[in-house]
C-alpha cells in the first residue's frame, strides 16, 4: 500500500473525451516518481486529477489510506498535498518573504521556523527576501515556487515540469534541490519533459501514452529499457 496513490483514474475536461483512462500512479514518502510521456499523453491531466483540479469519472485518490477523491484542491492542500504549477507558480508582485508567508496561509502556528528552514534549503532566497519576485531570474523564481509549496510542510509535493524553460546548469541545481526535498521524507511526483535527467534522479517512473500506463519501473530500468529508449529518450 503506497502512501499516496491514484488508482484507475479516468478523467477529462468538461464534457469532452477522456484524457486519461484507468491510469494508476503511486508514490511513497522519501521517493521521487517521474511521470513521462509524449505531448498530449495526459501527464498534466493525471497530476491535476491527483490534485482535484479535475473531477474523476471513475477511480479514486488515496493518501495514507484515506479516500480524498471528493475533496476540493484546497482541502487536499490541508491534507498535506502541495502543488507547483508549470507557469504562474509564484506571486510575481509580492516579495520573496511574502510568497513564503502566503504559502503558509493555512498554518496557524508560528511560521518563522519553517521560513528559516526554507532559507537553509535555498540560501539564495534568504539574501533576496525583501525583493519582488518578478525581478528575480528564472531559476530563482523556481526556487521561490518550491519554497512556497514547502511552507505547509507537505507530505506529498507535486511538480509540473519544474525545469521548463531554465538553462541546463539551473536545471541541475533544481534537481539537486528536489533530491534534498525528498531526503526530508517528502513524496515527490513530477511531470518532466527532460526525461533522461528526470529518470536519473527518480526512484521510479511512469510512462503514459494516450492517457494510459504504458511502462513503469525503477528509473534505471526505464533508462535501460530499449523500447522506452527508442520511443521517448531519442537514443
Amino acid at each position: 500500500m503506497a502512501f499516496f496513490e491514484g488508482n484507475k483514474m479516468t478523467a477529462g475536461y468538461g464534457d469532452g473525451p477522456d484524457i486519461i483512462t484507468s491510469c494508476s500512479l503511486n508514490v511513497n514518502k522519501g521517493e521521487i516518481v517521474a511521470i513521462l510521456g509524449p505531448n498530449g499523453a495526459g501527464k498534466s491531466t493525471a497530476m491535476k486529477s491527483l490534485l482535484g483540479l479535475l473531477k474523476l469519472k471513475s477511480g479514486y485518490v488515496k493518501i495514507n489510506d484515506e479516500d480524498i477523491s471528493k475533496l476540493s484542491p484546497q482541502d487536499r492542500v490541508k491534507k498535506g498535498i502541495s502543488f507547483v504549477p508549470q507557469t504562474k507558480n509564484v506571486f510575481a508582485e509580492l516579495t520573496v518573504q511574502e510568497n513564503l508567508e502566503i504559502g503558509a496561509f493555512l498554518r496557524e502556528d508560528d511560521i518563522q521556523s519553517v521560513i528559516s528552514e526554507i532559507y537553509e534549503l535555498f540560501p539564495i532566497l534568504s539574501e533576496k527576501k525583501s525583493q519582488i519576485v518578478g525581478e528575480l531570474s528564472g531559476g530563482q523564481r523556481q526556487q521561490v515556487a518550491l519554497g512556497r509549496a514547502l511552507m505547509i510542510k507537505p507530505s506529498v509535493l507535486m511538480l509540473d515540469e519544474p525545469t521548463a524553460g531554465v538553462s541546463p546548469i539551473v536545471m541541475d541545481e533544481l534537481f539537486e534541490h528536489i533530491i534534498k526535498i525528498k531526503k526530508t521524507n517528502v513524496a515527490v511526483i513530477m511531470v518532466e519533459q527532460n526525461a533522461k535527467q528526470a529518470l536519473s534522479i527518480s526512484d521510479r517512473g511512469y510512462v503514459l501514452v494516450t492517457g494510459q500506463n504504458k511502462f513503469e519501473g525503477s528509473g534505471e530500468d526505464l533508462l535501460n529499457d530499449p523500447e522506452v529508449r527508442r520511443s521517448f529518450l531519442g537514443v
Partner: protein
Amino acid sequence: MDYINAIILLLNFTILPALTYGSQLALGAIFVTLIYGILRFANFATGDMMSFGTMFAVLLTYYFQSIGLNLGFLPTALLTIPIAIFMMIFYMLIIDKFVFSYYRIKKSPPVQLAMVSVGVMFVTQAIIRIIIGPSDRRFLDGEKFILKATEFKQMTGLNEGLTIKSTQIITIAVTIVVVSIMFWFLNKTKTGTSMRAYSDNEDLALLSGIDPKKVVLITWIIAGILATIGGVLYGLDKSYRPFVYFNNMLPIFAAAIVGGIGNPYGAFLGGYVIAFAEIFLTYAYKKFFAYILPETLEPNSLVQLLSTDYKFAISFSILVIVLLFRPSGIFEGKKI
C-alpha cells in the same frame, strides 16, 4: 513686486483647494483601483456608490440635527459616517450577492462585468432619486472656518487673505488617516497580503488555501469605507447633489488610470495630479502676475488658460495622454 502676497494668493485659491479636492478624488480612485485589482472589473457605479453612502450621511445629519445631537464645532456628518458606511457596505454586499457574484462565478470577461456595473449604476441612481431626490443639499454645520480672510489680514498685515475652511482640514486629515490605515492593512497584515496575492495570481492563491469569498467580502468592506468617506468629505466641502457625484466619475477614473490602474499608491497620488491639473489650468492668474511683475507689465486679461466649464476636459485629456504614452500609469511600483 510682492512675492509673499503672491504666494498667499496661490495658496488660498489653488493649493489648498487642490489638496482638498485631490484627497476626495484619491479616495474614489483607490476604490476604483481596488475593485479593478481584486474583483477585476472597472466599476462604473463608483460615483453613484459614493453618492449612495453620502445620502445616508445627509439623511442622518438631518435626523441628528432634529433630535439635537451634534459634535459642537465639528460637522454632525462626521458622527453619521460609521452608520452610513454600514449601510453602504450592506448595499454593496447585496448587489454583489445578487448581481456581481453570478458573473464572477461564471468567470465572465471583465468587459461584461463593467457593463453589468453600468446597470448597477442606473439602479443605484434611481434608488437615490427615489429616496432623497435630485436636488442640491447642504449639510455642513458646526464651525465653517478655521481661519477667516479678515482675521489673517489683521494678523499679518498683508493685502491677501488666507481662508482655511474647516472642511479642507477635515478632508485632508481624514484622508491621511484612512489611507494610512488602508496601506498598513494591505502591506502588514496577513489578510492584506492574502488580498494582494489573490489580486496577483488568483489560481495560486486558491491553491495556497486563500478563501476567495473572504477576499471579496473584505474588498467590499474597504470599498464601502472609502466610497462613503470620500463622498461625505466631498459633500461637506461642496454640496450633496447626486448628479455631481455621477460626473465626478471621470476625474476619479482619470486619477486611477494616471496612477496605473490596480496600483493603490498610484491612485492616491493620481487624485492629486488630476486635482492640481484641473485647478492650476482653470485659475485666473491676473492678480498673481500683478503681484510678481512690475506695474508696466501687468496683464490686461484674466490670464486664465481654460474656463472652469472645461475642467472635465482636463481630466479627459490627461486620461487620453496617459493612455497613449504611459498606459501602465505614470508611477512605478507595486500593484495591489
